[in-house]
């Protein structure tokens, strides 16, 4: 189809900030349309006369575009030409048009124009009274899945892509002296004043162009069109090295201590898919000295009958579409306004050459100047009246107007009908207080402007312009300059001199008083009048709010939750104040008495991509590697995650199952020699004259007599007496130790030592340093380990008598200086070789060079677990869970209560509960059927026939098949287990079977420890 031949029926031939030389094609709900560069998706849809953009949540009513910015409740669309680039929740009013854009309604089924739900909706509306969200979806729990599907479908939340997002998202951190939010007249003015002081300034605005309302205003600044002033200011700011400008960047969150999160859309205006290598969206994280909020105000629509029919719009949005996008969104306009400013929409409409049917001014006494101007233009002004009802379903076809009383409480008569296709309503302005609420501040009501303004805050925050309730251009410019200079001065820049705060001249007419009207009365009571929508997104009506207050929901927070007002993705930007006013009125309270709900981050919906940034895929979480990782990869290791470490789990050979591999690895260790990369164990270097005493305080066993050259195993407990880590510590020299911790516990243990040193015993002379990454640890284990190692060292005496079990020695291994610890976690003769990690790979390879003749076999963590379980050695974190004492583990030998200092855990272990009889104790478990491996976590019972709930005695913590023993082995807790040796316990399984096991010693192999002492 030739796009140029298509008409943009509502497009003006001249004017606006669009580029008519640059045509763009886009698709909406499968139909192709033309638009221009400079359009938003919304302005292009309106230009093409698209009235219906979605269906409503509850009643499935057709909905059209209402607003022109972030406040748009209806045109919330699904974007994306391909499955991978689907983006839900895009406001058409904020999406810049690009060539090839594909958008669709999210809630129309099967189509937006002819929605089957609307038939259901007519019934459903009655079936779904306000509060259904609250009442219905609370229960039953089992139906939640169904409900969720229904809510998503109905609420138009859109859908997530099911393919991976190909785009790049990232985050960037900034620090600013002054952060200015919003680049309308106040924000530009503030940024300029602050920037001129040399302060570091960031100016962010959600729109592609800076200028805010000046982009569609008639005003002049210093005698020039306002847009020209904008261009000049932006040009000056661009020149400043200390100023960062962020267009297309929504300040979405204003968090504690002046921390702001800004969502920048860098390529969303170019295409669906960001150009290769380009970042699509960036989250800026800003810590600001001072913040100037110049977020402006959002126009309030009036609440009247059928006010959701497409064609009902905000007056200011009508002006924006005409002036900025050269689009008149209709042919015949009825304007309803409570204030002078509203008149402008009618004037703009007329200037665009279309018919203004009437200006309906709700005030009995309109301001003379407006009326004079209207009359001069030949426009009909109907005073003291309101549009009480709209006719039409997919587009406005006419309105009913009537006279209302001075307070706007009731219709006084004079009901008549007017034909039109557009109704613009101007109900006054609500300052965009959203960001000011994010850190907990409550907005305050100002009677003089009938609006909430930002409340008291602890943030270093200033407000300027409309957000402050200062709506005139002059006030915006003045406050902006003044607050900008003040913010800079507060941050230590500039002196707030006259030069900085010099305000350009603006001529604007004084405005007369506005009428406080929120809810337009109808001839019928609210409950029987046509639906008067308050919150379009959640289909909350004035009648619904009245029902809520009648049912006793008096707190506005309760009204909100009962009706779902403000729960949409627009957070009720248009509806909340009207809703509060209606709630207040129905309770005979004032709005400040009723109070307001507060807004939370994010200001507008944000993609998960921007939240995740680069922390996805390979970079989701750091992967830590040992120095020998490359070897493990090359030798086919399967890896296990231990904390962030990637540890070899087992090394399968061709055709081997995991169990085959484990069997082979374990046998190799028991029969000849195996090697484990133990580099990931935490290692803490401890130096100082009080090091030994410190060890005695943090471990449950004794350290006073550990000689230089010796190692000792220790258990570390919390003050509650419960084991939380363990490991071997070696005495390197009189005042020098190296402690090992579990792989996962390394950071925690170091912080634990520092905590006690810094807060409890600061006078002890000891320093702790992590050396985890510094040493590579190669554990060579098995009866041939001595022979093997002897081939690699000529300066370490490895003989049985000179290098005893639990000794360590320094020397060289494969020519590399090493500390060798003769310790064992497998129960076999073992040597742990520690070398500086830069040489870890070299030594590892050298060990294999001589290892072949000993069938040196690499083994992973799983084989290590089996080997240690055969010996009954615990793994802290697997066989302990924070509820077991050393005594529960049967490790009384590792408790030295004779130590003079009451070590950490001693008092805890002595608590009544810890010393009582019949605690759960760690025992070995031998299954009756030696081939059956009890699943870890299985619960022990004494009587498998006991009806549920059964009395549980404990659970299995470690369980494996031992190839060396030819039967399964397990460890677990059993109540009073140490005195139940030989008894049978039962482990019922989910499939109904029961595994029988005999309580035994956890040491299945070599109880005397002969193998490690050879």
């Amino acid at each position, binding site marked *: 189809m030739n796009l140029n031949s298509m008409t943009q029926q509502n497009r003006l031939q001249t004017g606006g900030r669009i580029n008519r030389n640059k045509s763009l094609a886009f698709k909406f709900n499968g139909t192709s349309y033309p638009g221009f560069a400079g359009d938003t998706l919304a302005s292009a849809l309106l230009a093409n006369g698209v009235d219906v953009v979605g269906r409503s949540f509850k009643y499935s009513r057709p909905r059209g575009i209402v607003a022109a910015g972030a406040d748009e409740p209806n045109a919330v669309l699904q974007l994306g030409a391909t499955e991978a680039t689907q983006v839900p929740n895009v406001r058409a009013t904020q999406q810049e048009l690009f060539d090839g854009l594909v958008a669709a309604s999210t809630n129309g089924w099967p189509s937006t124009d002819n929605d089957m739900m609307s038939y259901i909706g007519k019934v459903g509306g009655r079936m779904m009274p306000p509060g259904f969200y609250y009442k219905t979806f609370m229960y039953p729990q089992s139906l939640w899945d169904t409900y969720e599907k229904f809510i998503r479908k109905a609420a138009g939340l859109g859908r997530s892509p099911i393919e991976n997002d190909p785009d790049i998202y990232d985050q960037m951190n900034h620090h600013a002296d002054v952060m200015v939010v919003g680049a309308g007249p106040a924000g530009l003015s503030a940024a300029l004043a602050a920037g001129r002081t040399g302060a570091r300034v960031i100016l962010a605005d959600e729109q592609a162009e800076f200028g805010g309302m000046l982009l569609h205003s008639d005003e002049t600044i210093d005698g020039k069109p306002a847009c020209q002033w904008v261009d000049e200011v932006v040009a000056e700011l661009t020149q400043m090295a200390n100023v960062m400008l962020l267009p297309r960047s929504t300040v979405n969150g204003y968090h504690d*201590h002046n921390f702001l999160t800004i969502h920048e859309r860098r390529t969303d205006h170019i295409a669906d898919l960001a150009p290769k290598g380009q970042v699509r969206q960036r989250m800026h994280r800003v*810590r600001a000295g001072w913040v100037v909020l110049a977020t402006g105000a959002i126009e309030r629509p009036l609440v009247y009958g059928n006010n959701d029919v497409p064609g009902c719009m905000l007056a200011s949005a009508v002006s924006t579409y005409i002036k900025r996008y050269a689009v008149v969104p209709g042919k015949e306009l009825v304007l309803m306004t409570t204030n002078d400013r509203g008149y402008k929409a009618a004037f703009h409409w007329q200037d665009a050459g279309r018919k203004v049917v009437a200006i309906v001014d709700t005030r009995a006494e309109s301001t003379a100047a407006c009326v004079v101007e209207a009359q001069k233009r030949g426009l009909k002004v109907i005073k003291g009246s309101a549009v009480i009802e709209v006719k039409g379903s997919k587009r406005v076809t006419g309105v009913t107007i009537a006279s209302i009383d001075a307070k706007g409480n009731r219709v006084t008569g004079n009901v008549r009908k007017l034909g039109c296709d557009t109704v613009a309503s101007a109900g006054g302005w609500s300052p965009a207080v959203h960001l000011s609420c994010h850190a907990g501040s409550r907005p305050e009501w100002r009677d003089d402007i009938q609006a909430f303004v930002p409340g008291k805050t602890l943030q270093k925050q200033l407000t300027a312009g409309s957000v402050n309730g200062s709506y005139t251009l002059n006030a915006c410019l003045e406050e902006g300059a003044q607050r900008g200079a003040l913010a800079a001065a507060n941050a230590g820049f500039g002196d707030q001199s006259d030069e900085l705060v010099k305000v350009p001249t603006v001529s604007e007419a004084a405005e007369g008083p506005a009428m406080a009207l929120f809810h337009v009365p109808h001839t019928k009571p609210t409950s029987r009048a046509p639906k008067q929508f308050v919150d379009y997104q959640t289909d909350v009506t004035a009648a619904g709010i009245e029902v809520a207050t009648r049912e006793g929901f008096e707190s506005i927070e309760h009204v909100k939750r009962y009706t779902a007002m403000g729960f949409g993705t627009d957070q009720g930007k248009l509806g909340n104040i009207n809703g509060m006013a209606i709630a207040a009125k129905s309770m005979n309270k004032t709005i400040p008495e009723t109070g307001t709900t507060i807004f939370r981050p994010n200001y507008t919906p944000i993609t998960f991509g921007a939240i995740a940034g680069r922390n996805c895929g390979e970079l989701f979480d750091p992967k830590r590697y040992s120095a020998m990782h490359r070897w493990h990869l090359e030798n086919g290791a399967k890896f296990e995650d231990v904390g962030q470490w990637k540890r070899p789990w087992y090394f399968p050979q061709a055709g081997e199952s995991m169990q085959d591999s484990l069997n082979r690895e374990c046998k190799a260790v028991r029969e000849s020699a195996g090697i484990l990369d133990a580099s990931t164990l935490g290692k803490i270097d401890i130096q100082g004259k009080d090091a030994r005493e410190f060890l005695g305080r943090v471990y449950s066993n004794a350290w006073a007599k550990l000689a230089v050259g010796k190692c000792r195993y220790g258990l570390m407990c919390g003050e509650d007496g419960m084991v939380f880590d363990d490991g071997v510590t070696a005495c390197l020299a009189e005042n020098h130790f190296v402690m090992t911790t579990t792989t996962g516990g390394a950071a925690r243990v170091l*912080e634990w030592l*520092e905590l006690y040193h810094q*807060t409890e015993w*600061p006078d002890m002379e000891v320093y702790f340093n992590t050396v985890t990454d510094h040493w590579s640890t190669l554990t060579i284990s098995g009866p041939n380990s001595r022979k093997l190692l002897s081939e690699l060292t000529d300066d370490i005496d490895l003989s049985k008598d000179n290098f005893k079990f639990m000794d360590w020695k320094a020397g060289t291994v494969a020519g590399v200086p090493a500390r060798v610890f003769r310790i064992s976690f497998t129960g076999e003769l073992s040597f742990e070789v520690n070398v500086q990690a830069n040489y870890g790979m070299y030594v590892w390879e050298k060990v294999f060079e001589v290892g072949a003749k000993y069938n040196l076999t690499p083994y992973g963590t799983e084989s290590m677990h089996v080997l240690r379980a055969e010996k009954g050695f615990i793994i802290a974190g697997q066989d302990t869970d924070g509820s077991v004492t050393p005594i529960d583990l049967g490790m009384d030998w590792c408790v030295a209560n004779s130590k003079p200092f009451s070590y950490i855990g*001693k*008092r*805890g272990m002595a608590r009544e509960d810890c010393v009582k009889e019949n605690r759960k104790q760690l025992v070995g478990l031998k299954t009756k059927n030696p081939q059956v491996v009890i699943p870890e976590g299985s619960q022990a019972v004494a009587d498998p026939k006991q009806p549920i709930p059964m009395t549980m005695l404990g659970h299995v913590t470690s369980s494996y098949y031992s190839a060396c023993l030819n039967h399964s082995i397990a460890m677990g807790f059993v109540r009073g287990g140490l005195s139940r040796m030989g008894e049978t316990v039962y482990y019922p399984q989910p499939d109904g079977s029961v595994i029988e096991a005999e309580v035994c010693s956890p040491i299945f192999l070599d109880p005397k420890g002969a193998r490690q002492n050879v």
Partner: protein
Amino acid sequence: MFSIYCPYCEEHREEEEFHAKGQAHIARPLDPENCSDKEWGEYLYFRDNPRGLHHELWVHATGCRKFFNITRDTQSYEIKETYKIGAKPCFTATQDQ
């Protein structure tokens, strides 16, 4: 996200560098053996949960690794002061009321 003044690094740093470690000024009893189970239980488990000023122990985990104290308003999240271990707070709840 808080901005926290580290009294050891002598500058404000981002919260992500710190870990909160619970209520401050919980001293380990000097003679644990002579504590009753109740006293020991209170030392171990019982903590204040005030609305308002609270003294908290924090550690500059991804920084200088030093522990220090913060006086923080649990309602407004305002940090009134940070001070080194062994120092006394300038702001206390009673003084504030």
